[in-house]
């Protein structure tokens, strides 16, 4: 699994003075479904276009199947793209659209006919060959675009927000179909999206980008449960985020932190006193009790409870004004609005994000000095 098919090493991209992709390092594994997730304008499309060959990186190296690609035209790379706008050829029938890649490769006519049929049936469009793109619905056009790409047997399929133009229901259905198709074909999918739910449900791994920087790459569970940057913690799902300073390690190994809102507790092996950190804890891991809990001094007032099917989302306003979201399973006792509550959590459920000295600590870890630093505190 972990064999890289696409490697991006230290890639930068400038448009004039605009630094759009910054020191990007990323490995894409053979056969995986990798999503590139991030807010609008963060450089997702640019990254994809550099892999496809429509855009040249300013510096750095991109390899596909071990070969450097900077001097290869798009069609010389064993990579195909599905465009957000579908980019079907409007003057050609569905059949001719799908056959185009094979025709360019001078495949024999008889063979083309068979393979087009196979590709169309793979996207469940049998019998649509004679239609023109204008005579298809959005979902059908999307399928043609996919068939047109996969017929070339690429090693990597690049998809730029392929479901962006579809309505919610069709989108959900196509997500499942795309995922199944990827499993069936066994080819690598690089899937650009700004929909985190889509990324979380479909991907083997997710690369989260922000402002041209790769924030974190990992499995959906890693991204959700162990965010390594403040951006990722904030961007993926809902979270309660505290800016805090690490104070000291307690006897039980947990770390005492001081935030503006009060004292909190987390668990983190890496520790340097007085370092500025972020603590992120998901609403479903956040607890609100009637009496104070040791290690925490977060007193607040319940503002409202909202029932959403199986969960109840409560908002607790702390004394410094920060709003804390707590979700609990419906049916469990819910504090009445206006009542006082003490916010806490199981220290192991919180994630501590080292704001700036991340790299230094990583370096120390790799030099095996981590134990010394923690012990010496």
């Amino acid at each position, binding site marked *: 699994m972990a064999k890289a098919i696409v490697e991006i090493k230290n890639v930068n991209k400038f448009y004039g003075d605009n630094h759009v992709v910054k020191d990007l390092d990323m490995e894409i594994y053979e056969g995986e479904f990798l999503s590139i997730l991030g807010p609008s304008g963060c450089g997702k499309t640019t990254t994809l276009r550099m892999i*496809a060959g*429509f855009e040249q990186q300013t510096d750095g190296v991109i390899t596909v199947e071990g070969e450097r690609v900077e001097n290869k*035209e*798009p*069609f010389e790379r064993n990579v*195909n*793209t599905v*465009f*957000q*706008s579908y*980019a*079907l*050829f*409007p*003057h050609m029938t569905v059949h001719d659209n799908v056959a*185009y*890649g094979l025709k*360019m*490769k001078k495949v024999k006519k008889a063979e083309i006919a068979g393979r087009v049929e196979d590709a169309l049936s793979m996207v469940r469009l049998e019998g649509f060959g004679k*239609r023109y793109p*204008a*005579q298809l619905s959005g979902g059908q056009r999307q399928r043609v675009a996919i068939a*047109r*790409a996969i017929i*070339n047997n690429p090693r990597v399929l690049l998809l730029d927000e392929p479901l962006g133009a579809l309505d919610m229901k069709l989108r959900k259905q196509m997500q499942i179909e795309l995922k199944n198709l990827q499993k069936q074909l066994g080819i690598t999918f690089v899937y650009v999206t700004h929909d985190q739910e889509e990324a979380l449900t479909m991907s083997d791994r997710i690369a989260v980008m922000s402002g041209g920087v790769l924030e974190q790459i990992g499995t959906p569970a890693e991204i959700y449960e162990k965010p390594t940057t403040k951006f990722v913690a904030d961007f993926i799902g809902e979270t309660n985020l505290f800016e805090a300073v690490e104070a000291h390690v307690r006897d039980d190994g947990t770390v005492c932190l001081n935030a503006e809102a009060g004292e909190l507790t987390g668990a983190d092996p890496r520790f340097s006193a007085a370092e500025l950190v972020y603590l992120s804890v998901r609403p479903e891991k956040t607890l609100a009790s009637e009496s104070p809990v040791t290690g925490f001094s977060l007193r607040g007032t319940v503002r409202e409870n909202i029932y959403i099917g199986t969960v109840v989302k409560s908002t607790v306003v702390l004394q410094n004004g920060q709003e804390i979201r707590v979700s609990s399973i419906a049916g469990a006792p819910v504090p009445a609005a206006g009542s006082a509550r003490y916010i806490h959590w199981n220290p192991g459920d919180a994630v501590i994000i080292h704001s700036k000295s991340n790299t230094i600590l990583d370096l120390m870890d790799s030099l095996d000095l981590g134990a010394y630093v923690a012990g010496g505190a």
Partner: protein
Amino acid sequence: MRKKRKAAAKKYTSRVFSALVYLFLYAPIAVVILFSFNTSRRNVLFEGFTLDWYKQMATNHALLESFGNTLAVAGVSTLIATVIGTLTAIAMFRYKFRGKTIIDLLLYIPVVIPEIVLGIALLSVFSLVHVPLGLGSMIVAHVTFQIPFVVFTVRARLSGFDRSIEEAAMDLGANRVRVLTGITIPIIAPGIVSGAVLAFTLSIDDIIISFFTTGARSTTFPLKIMELVRSGVSPDVYALSTIIILATFVVVLISQISVYKANQRALKSKYKEKQK
């Protein structure tokens, strides 16, 4: 009841009105056709049916030659202007370069400048560089004023063009030439055709610029008629005009029918889809 009568009156007036418009448009043409079959030379009264003018026209070498010149100039200049204009439009759509806005502005000049000024300007350039006046110089002159019209129509067609279509073709293995000939040009073909038709029409009935840039032995059909007007137009000119009108009519009819058929086809397949 009153409402009904009002509606009927409305309908009636609108019919009369459109009848008048059509009369106004087509009466002169009808007159030309009618008098091309008139036995009398003077086009005041219709005195009897004859095909003599058609026979006379067929032997009027000067007239036929001028018509041939017109077709040759229009054909060649349209071809050149269409190729140059289309490539210019594509380049301007595709690339950003310095001075693009200036080039943009300069394109409008030949369109808005009085034709007579352009004619004199071209004539002085030709005499400056010693280009002999004739069909060649006239073709160059026509290309000059045709290019902007081709660029404008092609560019209008390109404005809705999705560039990722070209990228998709490259992604699938087409080189730049194949992308241009197999994808871009077929998609913008309607724009190119209407640009060419416009250029052709402009060339065919151009008088002023042709007047300045023509040679002694390369007169065109409009120039010939201008010349004849002084001595009185003879009905063989009507005969040739009638043939031109009919030819135009047939061309328009064919193009309309093909458009209609294409629309019908699209409608039918839509209908089929609905039934499914």
